[in-house]
């Protein structure tokens, strides 16, 4: 028979409770997620634009594979970019992620081309001061851009809604 030393309850609880609570919290998180709701998250990304803005490149590819058009205007939730930006294309959202690699990936799909879309994205990158993307989209410079115009246009979409 094991004789257990009579230990003060507060001492015992002080040792066991914090770690046990942490384990419990993790199990609660797991159970919620298994039931379809991830705690402390905004849920799964809803479209390519949200995925691009969040830098979830694998999700961008998944949406592309599912046939989503990166040039289509879609609604994005405020956490993705900012509370003032509600409606963007996937390509525009990718500029906000500030990654030339992601832009290159989207370019490889043929979504950017060499016309108006490239010019508009370049100006957005200029407005957001993402030099890396400006260099990628317009290696010869972007002197035609009117500072602030693209951002203003995108912000206006929210007001027009």
């Amino acid at each position: 028979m094991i004789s257990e030393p009579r230990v003060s309850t507060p001492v015992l609880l002080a040792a066991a409770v914090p770690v046990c609570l942490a384990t419990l919290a993790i199990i609660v998180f797991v159970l919620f997620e298994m039931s379809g709701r991830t705690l402390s998250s905004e849920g799964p990304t809803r479209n390519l634009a949200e995925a691009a803005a969040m830098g979830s490149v694998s999700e961008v590819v998944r949406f592309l594979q599912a046939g989503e058009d990166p040039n289509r205007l879609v609604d994005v939730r405020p956490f993705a970019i900012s509370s003032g930006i509600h409606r963007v294309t996937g390509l525009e959202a990718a500029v906000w992620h500030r990654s030339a690699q992601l832009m290159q990936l989207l370019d490889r799909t043929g979504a950017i081309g060499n016309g108006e879309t490239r010019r508009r994205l370049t100006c957005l990158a200029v407005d957001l001061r993402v030099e890396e993307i400006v260099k990628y989209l317009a290696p010869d410079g972007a002197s035609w851009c009117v500072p602030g115009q693209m951002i203003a246009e995108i912000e206006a979409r929210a007001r027009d809604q």
Partner: protein
Amino acid sequence: MTESDLDRPTRWTWLSYAYATLVVVGVSYLLLDIPIQVSDSYGNLVAASGRTLGALVYDQFHARGFLRPFLWAHIRIVYDLSGGDYYTWFRGWHVGQVSVLTILFLRLVKPRTATAFAGMAIGLAALIGIHTFEGTILEAFPINAYMTILICCYLAADLALGRPAWWRDVAAAVLFAFAALSVESGLLIAVVLVAAYLAGARGVSRWGIAAVVLLVAGYLALRFAVLDVGTPSLSERSSGFGFSVLEPDDLERRFGQHPSVFYLYNVGTSILSVLLSEPRAGVWGTTYNFLYRDELSIPPVINLTASVLGTLVLIWYGWRRRADWFARRFTRDDQLVAIFVAVILANAAVSYTYTKDVILSPAGIFYATALAVAVKSLIETGAVTASYARIAVLTTVLVVLSGAWAARAIGIHIALRATGAVVRNEWVYIDDWVARQGIVPDAAGLALKRQLQADAISKHPMRPIVLGEWVQWFRD
């Protein structure tokens, strides 16, 4: 408590196993979400699948710098067993390894009382929350060789601390041979067995220990005299020193003439890393941020608090038990602490050429077992008859200790979720990676790439990102 008392499970034993099951479920759920990695996994799978098992093992006996034939055999066997369902098998294997490691932890700690349960809970949080453990679950190659060694280390301790039996001697020798030929840190199996023997454990007999020591000599002869595998050179990879990471050229320039200085630095910082969580991989990052950047985030403070307090508890335990140790009287708990002391010294010694967190993972897991038994002893000093002042101090210390390790355990779960996202993004750029590595996959390699990419991106899509300021309290 007698040996037979320890063998008899109590309700606290069952409660401990139930609690550990919850811990394993939490880790496993997030671990299963991580796809097979690109770096160190895709290339290894292509290499392992391209030859017969025999040829693969034979080639590894003639590799330069490393002698890991059983690691490759391990990869190849799981690859074959998977029947093409790589995601399920390799991730499932990893989860299985975590489960086995946890069971072995409980077998070593043997929680039989409420105080032992509390000590076990903190020890288990330390097992999965310590920084040296991260590399064993956040990465895979696609079998995590370090995790395999951790299991072997705990198995060796379990063999040594059990009742004497001839089969334990045989098992110890086989275990050593398997571990040593899987990864270099497998040599620590011998340290575990010898340390346990010196601390009075007789599960493995004197003859068993002698056989293992002979095998160590055989390994060294095979590696250095017969196969001439050697060790990685100073300029093989970048390494931490002081406040920064030095590139191979810088290492050669600074220590080429006196490598022993660098080697001593690695040994010393490895010991400190396990005991204090600082430095990490030879770099004093937290210290630098504190001294020069004026920006100290919460997680490093938590890490330091947990480790410093935990180490103080271990020192207290040693001080309290010193009279018995000098008289060579060791309890089972003492033996676990003795194994930890031996493993941390040996682990640091074998890290002399290169140190990083995951290499120290064997010392990390024995830190967890030693902490579990030391905390149990500490709790036992808080008897109901103790003074209010003593109870108050003890309660405060234990709340901080337990809370800090709890936070580190939560941190590793956050890291697991983040790693799942990172690995998926890596699969998007797999073609760039393959080109950079100069790998030219054949038709089977290309098919494997497509399958693993589909697994990572479309079949097992990314789960929602966990947001919120609170995340930064637990993880940088």
